[in-house]
């Protein structure tokens, strides 16, 4: 079958960094192509070049037999390419139909609301999207919102859909639905580029994979004949099957963090103790109180009742700064606005929460030289890849950004660490790195609360596992006592 998309010899440089080095990529109609690679391997750059958000320094793109040269995203869309970003481009206050009409000439100068709504209904039925044209976006869970984006692409007659890590924010059931929708799109002869880190999904849905590594194609394979281990090896150039030493010995340390009848807005009363040398994994579908829990524990959300102690000291009403001083570290899930200041440098972000302490500051002054030396050391130690500490964080890949947060919070050698989605958006190699560092911190005697919607990570790292549902713990048990069935029951909100 003739190709839907042919990219030939794509080269894109950023200064002296070659993000795409002579890459070829083909997509046939009715093909789901998995695009894999570690953070910073050039996947996003390649897709931005395809979608016209970046121009290529060399190479050619042919789409449906016609060349795309120096095109804009608008022209790419008009040609039939749709890009579904990790963060949805939807207006919360508007309905599904209104979002579909947004910026779409076919909606008419005088909006044809009824007609579009019926087209939304029809397409929703045909592709199994299960969307009500009149529901406001704000009322939809993330999985449904993503389907609105897919619906927009379908109605605009897209022939090629690019999905950038589409499953990273979804609950397991939503992932299964999405994969089913992708299969239906494939049956309608659409081409799909599926960018992901998650090998099980690739094995389940993709026809072929292309793996990028440091800007080059590291391998191509037909999924039918490849195993998980082979793909992972192709991706980072080594095997990552993970040994797990968690939960083997019961934690023996003293209680470091204790919550008693603890609650805040959005939480129900929680009582839990975490000992030194223990990792408590908190699993659960996003939006069940995880953000509220970590914010209340770290002082960003006022506590409305109960008691919280750290190493025996009452911190129920302590400020963020006071808790930090007592040894509470925190990696927030919101990397973009909370954990990092993107228009500041790596060095400034590394000292974000420590600017008054050596080596970053002394008394009323910043000590720039020793701060920069420290930043350089952390960059080496945590493998943060950039030219120098003055590099702006916004220009780093997501994985490198997260490593800054990890370096900053772990380097303080905290007594208690609260990590929320700490490996979010990281490739298997970097995830492994982060988890290993946390296990090392635990072995040094710290207590860790690891909150993640990735069950696999939680199972890998935790000594005990709690599941959040409806703002409270639906259940809590040691690693060796939990199984998938029990966790599934807890996640659905039924206490076992």
């Amino acid at each position: 079958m003739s190709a839907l998309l042919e990219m030939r010899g794509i080269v894109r440089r950023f200064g002296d960094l070659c993000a795409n080095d002579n890459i070829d990529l083909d997509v046939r109609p009715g093909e789901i192509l998995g695009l894999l690679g570690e953070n910073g391997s050039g996947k996003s750059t390649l897709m931005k070049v395809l979608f016209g958000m970046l121009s290529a320094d060399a190479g050619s793109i042919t789409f449906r037999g016609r060349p795309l040269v120096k095109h804009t995203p608008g022209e790419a869309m008009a040609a039939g390419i749709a890009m579904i970003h990790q963060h949805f481009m939807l207006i919360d206050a508007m309905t599904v139909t209104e979002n579909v009409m947004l910026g779409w000439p076919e909606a008419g100068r005088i909006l044809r609301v009824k007609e579009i709504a019926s087209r939304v209904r029809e397409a929703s039925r045909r592709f199994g999207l299960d969307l009500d044209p009149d529901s406001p976006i704000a009322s939809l869970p993330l999985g449904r919102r993503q389907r609105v984006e897919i619906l927009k692409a379908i109605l605009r007659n897209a022939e090629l859909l690019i999905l950038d890590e589409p499953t990273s924010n979804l609950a397991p059931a939503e992932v299964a639905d999405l994969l089913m929708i992708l299969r239906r799109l494939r049956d309608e002869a659409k081409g799909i580029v599926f960018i992901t880190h998650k090998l099980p999904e690739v094995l389940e849905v993709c026809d072929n994979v292309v793996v990028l590594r440091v800007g080059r194609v590291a391998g191509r394979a037909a999924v039918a004949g490849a195993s998980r281990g082979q793909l992972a090896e192709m991706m980072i150039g080594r095997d990552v099957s993970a040994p797990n030493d968690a939960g083997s010995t019961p934690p023996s340390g003293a209680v470091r963090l204790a919550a008693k009848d603890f609650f805040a807005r959005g939480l129900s009363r929680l009582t839990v103790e975490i000992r030194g040398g223990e990792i408590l994994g908190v699993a659960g579908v996003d939006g069940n109180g995880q953000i509220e829990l970590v914010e209340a524990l770290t002082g960003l959300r006022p506590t409305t009742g109960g008691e919280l102690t750290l190493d025996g000291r009452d911190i129920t009403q302590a400020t963020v700064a006071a808790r930090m001083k007592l040894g509470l570290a925190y990696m927030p899930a919101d990397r973009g606005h909370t954990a990092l200041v993107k228009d500041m440098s790596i060095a400034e972000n590394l000292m974000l929460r420590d600017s008054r302490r050596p080596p970053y500051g002394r008394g009323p002054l910043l000590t720039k030289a020793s701060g920069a030396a420290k930043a350089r050391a952390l960059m080496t130690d945590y493998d943060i890849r950039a030219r120098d500490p003055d590099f702006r964080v916004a220009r780093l890949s997501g994985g490198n950004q997260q490593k800054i947060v990890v370096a900053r919070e772990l380097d303080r050698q905290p007594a208690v660490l609260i990590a929320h989605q700490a490996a979010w958006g990281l490739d298997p190699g970097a995830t492994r790195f982060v988890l290993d560092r946390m296990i090392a911190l635990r072995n040094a005697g710290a207590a860790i609360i690891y909150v993640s919607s990735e069950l696999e990570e939680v199972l890998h790292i935790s000594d005990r596992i709690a599941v959040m549902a409806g703002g409270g713990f639906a259940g809590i048990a040691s690693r060796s006592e939990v199984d998938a069935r029990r966790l599934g029951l807890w996640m659905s909100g039924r206490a076992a």
Partner: protein
Amino acid sequence: MSEAAPAMTPATARRDRRLRLKAGGPPARILIALLLSILSAAALIAVSGHDPLSAFAAIAKGAAGSEHQIGASLNRSTPYLLAGVGVALCFRAGIINIGAEGQIAVGGAGAAAVALVLPGAPPLIAIVAALIGGALAGAAWAGVATAIHLGRRVHEVLATLLLNFVALLLVQQLLAGPLGQFGAGFLQSPLLPRSAWLPKLPGFDAHPGFLIAVAAAAALSFVLWRTPFGFALRVAGSSRLAAAYAGFSLQRLTWGAMLTAGALAGLAGGVEVLGVHRRLIEGFSLGFGFKAVTVALLGAMEPLAVVPAALFVGLLESGALAMQRQIGVPSALVTVIEGLTMLYVLAATVVRK
């Protein structure tokens, strides 16, 4: 650090950020913007039937043609610079302080009041006391706005802007009452005692206010880039969520930035009163506070860059009258040039996104 940390959702932060100004663009962009505004002004002058080159020559000569004129230009730039660096500090922290206008007026009144109650003090003491009085008065006025903003959650633009009008009326009222000169026929105070007059710089027809202002700009630049306090301000200006996460108290940062800006604006009023008019006159600072906002933006919210920005506006304005006298181009045209410059600079810094 006693207040409970404010609960802030990403949604409110996003709404908030839209109102907050971004730090300025690279100097090259701003220079191009200046060049464009001068070209536009030339076109306007040509349209009005005059020769742009001779008009600019008249402005240049009027602004810096002699020691006397240079002095007048420096005096003119001084309040813009003092108040402008304070405004720049607030903007950097994401606090949109439009209250310099009122803070300058109240500062001038404060300085005049101190000078009038200390008629017999030796010169240096009288001057320093009066300037401190001005700075304190300005800081107090900024403090009122801050208390309303933080205590009652009134947006800082409203709190600072509206208090400007109250400040002007307050100064009027003081001049109609305790500070006024009886029978003057005009709202003004008696002449201040000679000991409180700012001396002239040797060789120039200028008071030392400009030097104070440059020192203030240098000090604020140091604070912004070399201290944890300045770092916290910059973080808060970029992301309130990140500032809360870092453990900074947004309330304390707001108080710090606002009181500093208020003190500098008050100082600007004091310098103007002690150095130029030597008495408090109604409306002595009309428009200064809004010029300070212009100058802060023109200087890309970088304290040291506000120095050339304030000089630019000061020189332009003091040259304007000469242009009007010599070749009949109305001096109001300079206001147009200032407006155009603002537009171009803002356009140049927004393009960056």
